[in-house]
């Protein structure tokens, strides 16, 4: 018996060492969200869906405002406002004063795809890493590697995507996509289609959690609400979906330190599809947000 256990342990040790070593190699090429869970707790955060994950570049804020801000935005299925995202954000936040918090908003992030938009048991983010991750600040993050890298360990060693790279500051860099008119227009139309078809309802629960998030962050610094630009046809879908969006989130705006609506200027920017800014425009938008925050702070 002892001989058996001894041999098994001796046999297994090299495998553990190998896996442990490989875990340290996981980076922004390995997975779209892994690094979001490996940074330490953050004093300043950017929240929202993939529009923010791809569109807002933290390094620009460092240059203009001199702050380290972490992009903790995911996508429309993982991180709409709600209990799940709120609790994950609490784990990621370092409770220190003078933080800056940019909460991006759009109709999708406060809506539900279900008949009963306030039934939290049916929320789409309930079975995602955002809900299931207990540890969001450890590097390597073994919990994430065990739960979500099954079948993908080779991605740690091989760059798994030519197009996506997640920076250490949480910004999802998308580049290398074919931008010729045929590919570009095809991508725009393909990505518009699902949003035309999805039936959504405003969720009061989500709206309450957005407000709760704002009120929580207010205790630790300045909170800015931003509506990011999207491809003009997508902006039409957004406006049709929730024509009185600004009115709906009016209490959220009132409780914040400022609201910047960039949607009307959507046609000034370049996009990679109907929802997401091209990285060049992302840098411009990030710069405009940072300058706006700077101006807001100077006003005080």
């Amino acid at each position: 018996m002892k001989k058996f256990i001894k041999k098994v342990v001796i046999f297994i040790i090299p495998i553990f060492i190998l896996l442990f070593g490989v875990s340290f190699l996981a980076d922004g090429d390995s997975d779209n969200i892994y690094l979001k869970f490996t940074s330490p707790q953050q004093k300043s955060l950017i929240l929202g869906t993939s529009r923010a994950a791809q569109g807002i570049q933290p390094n620009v804020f460092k240059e203009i405002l001199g702050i380290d801000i972490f992009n903790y935005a995911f996508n429309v299925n993982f991180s709409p406002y709600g209990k799940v995202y709120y609790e994950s954000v609490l784990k990621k936040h370092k409770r220190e004063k003078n933080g800056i918090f940019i909460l991006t908003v759009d109709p999708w992030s406060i809506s539900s795809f279900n008949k009963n938009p306030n039934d939290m048991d049916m929320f789409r983010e309930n079975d995602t890493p955002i809900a299931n991750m207990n540890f969001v600040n450890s590097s390597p993050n073994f919990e994430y590697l065990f739960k979500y890298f099954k079948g993908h360990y080779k991605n740690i060693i091989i760059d798994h995507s030519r197009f996506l790279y997640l920076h250490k500051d949480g910004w999802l860099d998308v580049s290398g996509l074919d931008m010729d008119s045929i590919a570009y227009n095809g991508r725009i139309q393909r990505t518009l289609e699902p949003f035309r078809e999805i039936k959504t309802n405003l969720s009061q629960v989500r709206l309450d959690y957005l407000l709760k998030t704002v009120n929580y962050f207010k205790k630790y610094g300045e909170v800015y609400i931003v509506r990011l630009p999207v491809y003009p046809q997508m902006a039409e879908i957004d406006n049709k979906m929730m024509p009185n969006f600004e009115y709906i989130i009016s209490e959220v705006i009132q409780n914040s330190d400022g609201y910047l609506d960039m949607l009307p200027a959507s046609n000034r920017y370049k996009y990679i599809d109907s929802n997401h800014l091209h990285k060049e425009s992302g840098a411009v938008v990030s710069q405009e947000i940072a300058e706006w925050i700077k101006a807001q702070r100077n006003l005080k």
Partner: protein
Amino acid sequence: MLFNSLDFAIFLPIVFVLYWFVVNKNLKQQNILIALASYVFYGWWDWRFLALILFSTLVDYVVGVSLGKEQNLNKRKILLWISILVNLGFLGFFKYYNFFLDNFKSAFTFFGSEINANSLNIILPVGISFYTFQTLSYTIDVYKKRLEPTKDFISFAAFVSFFPQLVAGPIERATNLLPQMLSKRKFEYSEAVDGLRQILWGLFKKIVIADNCATYANLIFNNSADYSGNTLVLGAIFFTFQIYGDFSGYSDIAIGTSRLFGFKLMQNFAFPYFSRDIAEFWRRWHISLSTWFRDYLYIPLGGSRGGTWIKVRNTFIIFIVSGFWHGANWTFVVWGALNALYFLPLLLTKRNRQNLGTVAEGSYLPSIKEFSNVAITFGLTVFAWIFFRADNIGHAISYISGMFSSSLFTIPRHIFGFQGLITIILVAIFVLIEWQGREEQFALSNLESKWKRPLRHAFYYAIIISLIWFSGEEQAFIYFQF
């Protein structure tokens, strides 16, 4: 709890250490540990259905004890029927209620009258078909006086819920497993090492072969209208390896795990794709279910004794019931009937037992005749699996029509990429390894007598690295749904 999960990787060593180091001196305590561990294992998935297993265990235990005391034939029959009705009642309700309801509704609508009955939102308890048949075998064997009923409830509960084979078999006979529960187990080094080897091979079958094949089988079956005939053939072959890797992989892990605890379960798969005819295939595929139906259905019906009509009837009954056991869908019924059609000519011409040994026994390569027989049997099996995998009969028919269209002879569309090519190479390597070990209990059995230690260990590490490197997208075990 899934065998290929981190939860199980933690659970198994804990139970193993408790079993051999803490409660090793007391058989009763060992059986209590097995029963508790099995309930934790099952409850990890959904604790609410533990009550179902417990109730089924209680009923069969009480029926067994009563059968031991009762000599009156009529009363014994009543006791047997109580067990059958309870067990099959649960199975019928959870698995077949909606199927029968929908079909009755369709039949009434067809004849011009409507009935109002709503389908229920029923969750199928994992493994219900497996443990139901296992407990039934106990009651029937006690009724037939092939087995003495046990008065040891803990051992009986451990027998019913034994975690390695609880949710997807092998469906153990009480005559084999229960006596092992009732006697002292001894740790045997060689058994434990071979058990670990079997677990490793089972994981390879599941994670590398089945899960990778599933990616392409799902892609092709779910979009079958978009693909040419030759791609559809490839899709059916991918599914053929998926289901074998999935199910026989599970059985290997179950048997290997049992061996770590000193139990010997029956072999469930004996290299079925190397069969030379369908009769041999059915002696090698899901052996525990085939023999269950043979002993508790086919033989009581008269088996192959009697006239031609009886033989035909019994063959169809056993294959169709076996198909229906897999799920409440007409596709499984047709799959069973198709296999009956394959089998009948062999039975009627008395050639169903002509291939009892192993193909190419003692040699490296098969003869041309053996090879062609294996290829034909494999082709028939692949064809039948289309019905098993299809969503419904219409889907199966359109899949087969697409397969045998003129596009069968066109150049296949390149849909698989590099990863697809890797999968095909992995399957080829897998077939070669299975072929070299086809005379053993599983492909890697007794490896120490064939290979030197450095080569053996290098091979184990290669398998482990392939589990990490080539693992496919995680898929649920197919047989959990049965």
